[in-house]
């Protein structure tokens, strides 16, 4: 008798503490969308546990599976949707460099709400997918890390930058223009080439290898690393046509820098239903 009371007590405690689990991603209505991963507003959203698989459909594939699953919650204010992703990661990888990949995650949603879903692997010709992508090194930049080699390698020895020599004035247009000559990606406006104002980017794809900058969906985000791993909030415009109680689909991808994951070498999910609820 004593034992069963104890069991009952334990069970109630577990239920009240643990999140409500659901087998699809449920975007719950919220007056205001939280921007921080630790906001208590997330408690209102049920949790979905999404299993991840290694990307093994196109070369280069991910040979060794890493992140097995992510925990997902979602909230919507009727015009935007916020998704919180949590995954375990033993090491924080936020410094890019030769053979140094960075932690990252992404959500993928079909551009159009159609019965026939696009290929879960980056969409397909005629059926575009919208990807919102977050990266740990961009987060570090947004959180205040500087844009010099010494910010990445504190002991770096630098001989000379021609654009930092006299007679060019510090901070002058002439100096900026000359520095750009040695930074072709920035000169061309490659959105990945920083320095970043946001840790996320809006992308569009029609199949593997086609990822490119997409029309702005107002992507925003914030990632925080703690002992267990990453918790990242990604927000963007609500998928077009997603009225209350309607369904679209969502897919996830996670990259662990410490496992040399980048680009096609990633853990990813298939399509998971995404439903909008009023409460």
């Amino acid at each position, binding site marked *: 008798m004593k034992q069963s009371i104890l069991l009952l007590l334990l069970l109630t405690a577990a239920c009240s503490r643990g999140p409500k689990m659901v087998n699809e991603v449920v975007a719950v209505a919220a007056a205001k969308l939280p921007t921080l991963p630790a906001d208590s507003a997330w408690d209102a959203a049920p949790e979905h546990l999404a299993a991840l698989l290694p990307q093994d459909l196109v070369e280069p594939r991910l040979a060794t599976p890493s992140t097995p699953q992510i925990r997902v919650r979602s909230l919507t204010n009727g015009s935007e949707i916020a998704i919180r992703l949590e995954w375990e990661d033993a090491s924080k990888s936020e410094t890019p460099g030769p053979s140094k990949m960075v932690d990252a995650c992404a959500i993928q949603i079909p551009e159009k709400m159609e019965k026939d879903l696009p290929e879960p692997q980056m969409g397909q010709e005629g059926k575009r997918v919208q990807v919102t992508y977050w990266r740990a090194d961009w987060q570090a930049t947004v959180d205040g890390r500087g844009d010099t080699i010494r910010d*990445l390698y504190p002991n770096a020895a630098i001989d000379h930058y021609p654009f930092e020599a006299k007679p060019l004035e510090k901070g002058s247009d002439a100096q900026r223009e000359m520095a750009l000559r040695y930074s072709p990606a920035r000169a061309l406006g490659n959105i990945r*080439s920083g320095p970043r104002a946001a840790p996320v980017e809006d992308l569009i794809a029609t199949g593997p290898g086609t990822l490119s900058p997409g029309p702005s969906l107002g992507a925003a985000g914030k990632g925080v690393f703690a002992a267990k791993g990453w918790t990242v909030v990604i927000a963007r415009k609500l998928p077009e046509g997603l009225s209350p109680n309607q369904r679209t689909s969502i897919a996830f991808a996670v990259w662990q820098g410490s496992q040399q994951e980048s680009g096609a070498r990633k853990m990813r999910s298939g399509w998971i239903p995404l439903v909008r609820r009023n409460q």
Partner: protein
Amino acid sequence: MARVNNWQIGREMSYWYPEARPKKQFAAVFDTNKCIACQTCTLACKTTWTSGKGQEYMLWNNVETKPYGSYPLAYDLKLLDMLNGQAWNGNKYEGQTLFESAPAGERVLGWRPEQQDYAYPNVGEDDCANQVDHGAFLSLPHMNWFFYLARICNHCTYPACLASCPRGSIYKRPEDGIVLVDQNRCRGYQECVKGCPYKKVFFNPLTNTSEKCIACFPKVEQGIQPQCFVNCIGKIRMAGFLNKPEEARADNPIDYLVHIKKVALPLFPQFGLEPNVYYIPPIHAPASFNRQLFGPGAAEAMKIYRNAANDPDLAGLLCLFGSTEKMVTRFRRQGDLVTAVGDGGADLVRVPMHETVHIRPAIDPMNQLVRINIP
């Protein structure tokens, strides 16, 4: 994978894309026998292209002392090890190229250097291959050896960097075969860094893109040789365009050295990329070492080069190295005079094969003084 023809290994091979040779192929010949490792080429490139933030460690051009020097560290030995000693049968490579030996799930057999591998731009600089015993003195032939290997991107016919990129961000220009990373399309996955066996693509951590030698294409487009060529103190380099072996022209300098004389050889042809920088092997290094680097033609090439004094066309053409900043697309020799001809057919420069030498006697008879040489 497609089947393509690679003349450097004497057979067809598998490649990620079908054969698509450019209209013209940018190519170069480096005479290793003349390089003095002054690194002027390295600096010429560095100041022109890689003085920016995030490019600090990059050397699109580097010069390494062989046998030990390698940048990044052991780039060559690691791959040779991975290929595990495969065989040539005459001029046909019977082993597997990097494309053919790609493990499941990969596009190319490769490895990615760690950051510390870039910390030794020329390990073993000026170190010779063996211990020099106490009491040894200089004798000929040298009991020991080393030589300098200058390296840039090979603007390969079958680039592994290009094949490795899952986004198609790397392209080979149809007009001149120069291989470029589209800096707008690149997303910094570093697959090309892993794929290129010569390790001539570098990741820029501040722009999150991979960057590589561009063969100074703005100069090449104007018929001028790249920076590392025109600044070469040893005059070891000549840039031009290479035809397929069956279309070789005897008056095209690169065709002549590569296809006709076969005195200039590709670096690690067994990798299967058909690299387009060709080396005249160092004649004082062992033929076995040259064979490992430059393939089965090495011993013969050494012989031909040694005999250059009796081969006026070859000797004449070698005199044109470093004689003009223009790209030399044709050459001709009349007696002792060699002429470099440019793209438009105009003569660029005429060089005598022998220059008149005046030797002053050590004693000045008029003043009865010993002359002192003042540099």
